[in-house]
């Protein structure tokens, strides 16, 4: 699990706006990719389709060969249990402690209390927040809150990690630190996709960069020590003739 493929994916909203237009792209298992482009380019829409939070108007989103867009509402939650998701505004629950926030995905999976405690500590250690588990999110700095969000995303050791503007309003040092966390996570085998328009930072990271412009892939720049990916080949004509 961890191989992702988009096959001629188009997403048109009810108002007629086309957020993604015939996007075909592939992510190898264990790869790390940055998704960039101007505001409104379709980055969030792209991630939503991977999450199964929205379905493509045309085309297929395949994760390990399974079409996410055609997945039943009953199966979707079990698919999501294999994903880790990080947002810009971290989506932490203000009424719950750091520990409980991070434990949430494990509780949903019905894990035992002792195993939960062990995993939550391990996860908090990774983001260097061990010792703050009994605080409430409002007592943490923005950067710390964002790291709690990351701890929650990785606590299940997901095969796929998706992040939407995870460094949105953090200072450069902190942003760098967060990106490093993602790449460390990628090194242990997860497929990582991070949407960000912090161009200078992502170029510094030396990973594959997928550039979206008005819903189309306009460039696909391979990472420094990754094998080259073809820029989204426009196969429409070939297949339809």
């Amino acid at each position, binding site marked *: 699990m961890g191989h992702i493929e988009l096959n001629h994916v188009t997403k048109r909203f009810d108002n007629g706006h086309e957020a993604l237009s015939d996007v075909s792209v592939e992510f190898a298992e264990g790869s790390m990719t940055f998704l960039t482009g101007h505001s409104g380019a379709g980055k969030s829409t792209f991630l939503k389709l991977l999450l199964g939070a929205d379905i493509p108007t045309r085309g297929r989103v395949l994760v390990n060969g399974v079409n996410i867009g055609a997945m039943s509402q009953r199966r979707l939650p079990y698919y999501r249990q294999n994903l880790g*998701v990080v947002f810009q505004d971290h989506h932490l*629950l203000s*009424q719950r402690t750091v520990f409980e926030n991070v434990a949430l995905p494990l509780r949903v999976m019905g894990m035992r209390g002792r195993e939960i405690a062990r995993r939550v500590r391990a996860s908090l250690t990774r983001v260097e927040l061990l010792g703050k588990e009994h605080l409430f999110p409002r007592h943490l700095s923005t950067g710390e809150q964002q790291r709690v969000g990351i701890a929650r995303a990785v606590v299940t050791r997901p095969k796929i990690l998706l992040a939407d503007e995870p460094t949105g309003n953090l200072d450069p040092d902190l942003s760098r630190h967060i990106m490093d966390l993602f790449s460390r996570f990628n090194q242990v085998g997860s497929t990582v996709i991070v949407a960000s328009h912090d161009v200078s930072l992502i170029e510094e990271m030396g990973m594959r960069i997928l550039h979206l412009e008005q819903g189309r892939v306009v460039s696909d720049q391979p990472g420094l020590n990754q094998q080259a990916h073809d820029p989204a080949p426009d196969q429409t004509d070939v297949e339809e003739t």
Partner: protein
Amino acid sequence: MVSRFKWLGWLRDHGRIAVESLHYISSRLGTSFLVWLLVGIALALPAGLWILQVNMAEMSADWQGRPGLSVYFKMQTANSQVQDAAVLLGRQDIIDEVVTTSAEEALEEFKSYSGLTGGEGGLGDALTLLDKNPLPASLRAYFVPGAAIGEVEHLINLAQRQPGVAEVVVEKTWLERLHELSRVVSRLGAILGVLFGLGAILVTASSVRLAIEGRLDELRVLKMVGATQGQVRRPFLYFGALYGFGGGVIAAMLISVTLVVIEPPLQSLLGSYQRELNLAGFDPIFLLVLLGLGSVLGIVGAILAVRQRLKDLEIF
């Protein structure tokens, strides 16, 4: 092994959510109590009417299936004439049984009635001062079940022609009226039960809706981390059940208080008819049904709210 783990996880999740729901409700006792009260009142009315109806039906059970006519004789009619009339009526096809009451028996009965409430110097005592018995002899003839009206008319004529007969009455006894009234109450209770049950459902539905609104962020996160639809809905179904159950408890309290309050006047009403007050229906089974019904209505309300609000909750 895998499925056992799943079951354990499922149970754990239920346990955790039940505890959380209790905590949620007890941390908002003011609101919760209001909901309980509203649901409780909605349940108490039809349930109370049901108890009333059960008791009325029980009291009128003596009468049920035994309609008849009463024949009153003139004063100082000879007992032999009363017996003759009784035998004649008893021979009729539509008469099941005839019971005669002589003037003396009537007097005895009257004395013991008024003795109940009159005490020393009561009406019963006053009667002993009279040198003549003021009460007539009478008889009551019970119809066989399903006697036709036409035959009853014929029987009334026959009875009236007997010597010494003063009056023939096909009376509606108070029990008979009670029986009819209990049917009215029964139907009223059914209608009110449906209406107020609906009310209970709406009250829990809107309370659960409020609870959902207050936790939308949490629900989005839950869906995002892969909570199933069941897991997202579960706490609210617990809320509904707890609201309904609490409403059932309140309803039980309201009804028992009402019964205590109406017992004395009811006692004297029934006592004057020489009947013992023995309220039926308010038993453990009734309580269980009340609490169960409350919980079910609460859950139905919660399902409505959840359906309406959580159907297409966007994750982000």
